[in-house]
């Protein structure tokens, strides 16, 4: 009793903090992908809080025709301050044309949720539409040659 009066003890009630973060490795603004091919992105899931996070389920919001798979697909337990790497296998759509595509990754746990996104760029090789254009131009040139031979006689 006396000791408690003489030396009041401070009970530091540590506030419960739940903080889940997702980070794609390495950091990049965009990554080039090829239509129909699978590209693996590495994602770090980190528990920055002081409480364990359980039942983390991974899901993605991908462009039409694309598929996203996670390895592992879920994490049952992630202790405070710890992290885990997940392989994100992204398969670009076969018919996807040149351009930037955003894949949003969601991690939903029993206690919290987090999201991140990746910009994937398709720019290798001429696109389907370019071949269409080249085909039309080829036909037009052939047509002009015929016209020139047919109507150009003096």
């Amino acid at each position: 009793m006396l000791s408690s009066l003489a030396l009041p003890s401070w009970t530091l009630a540590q506030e419960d903090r739940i903080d889940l973060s997702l980070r794609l490795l390495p950091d990049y603004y965009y990554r080039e992908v090829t239509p129909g091919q699978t590209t693996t992105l590495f994602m770090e899931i980190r528990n920055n809080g002081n409480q364990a996070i359980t039942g983390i389920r991974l899901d993605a919001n991908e462009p039409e025709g694309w598929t996203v798979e996670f390895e592992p697909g879920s994490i049952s337990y992630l202790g405070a301050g710890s992290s885990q790497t997940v392989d994100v296998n992204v398969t670009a759509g076969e018919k996807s044309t040149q351009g930037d595509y955003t894949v949003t990754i969601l991690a939903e746990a029993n206690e919290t949720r987090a999201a991140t996104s990746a910009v994937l760029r398709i720019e290798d090789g001429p696109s389907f539409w370019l071949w269409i254009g080249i085909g039309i131009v080829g036909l037009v040139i052939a047509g002009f040659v015929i016209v020139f031979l047919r109507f150009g006689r003096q």
Partner: protein
Amino acid sequence: MIERVHEHIIGELNTNARTDTIFVITAIILNLITLGINSGLASSGADTTQTIVMFTFVALIIVVNFVSEIGLLRGRVMRKKLLDGLLKMYKDQGVEGYYDSSLLSDYSLRYNLFMLTVLFTGLIAIIIPFIIR
């Protein structure tokens, strides 16, 4: 009578020049306008409506350019015939020395350049939107 024929040939040549100018200017302006429209459509998105509109304009470019090229080719043939007649007339009148016959080949070269300009602006108007897309 020969003066009337001469006036008629000169009149035909003037009409021919005006028609060719219209063909060239119309084709080039239309090609440039369509290039702008299709480039805008190609960069704005890739839905079905935009694709149909784009291909409609491509069809328009092709038709107008073919019409212009055929018109220019026929115009070149017509101008040559008219100038041949004019030269013959000058020869008959003994004044052919005042008209250099090499002008005929100059006209032919000029027509080829006009046709090349129309053709290339047309091809660029077709291909650029597909590159953007």
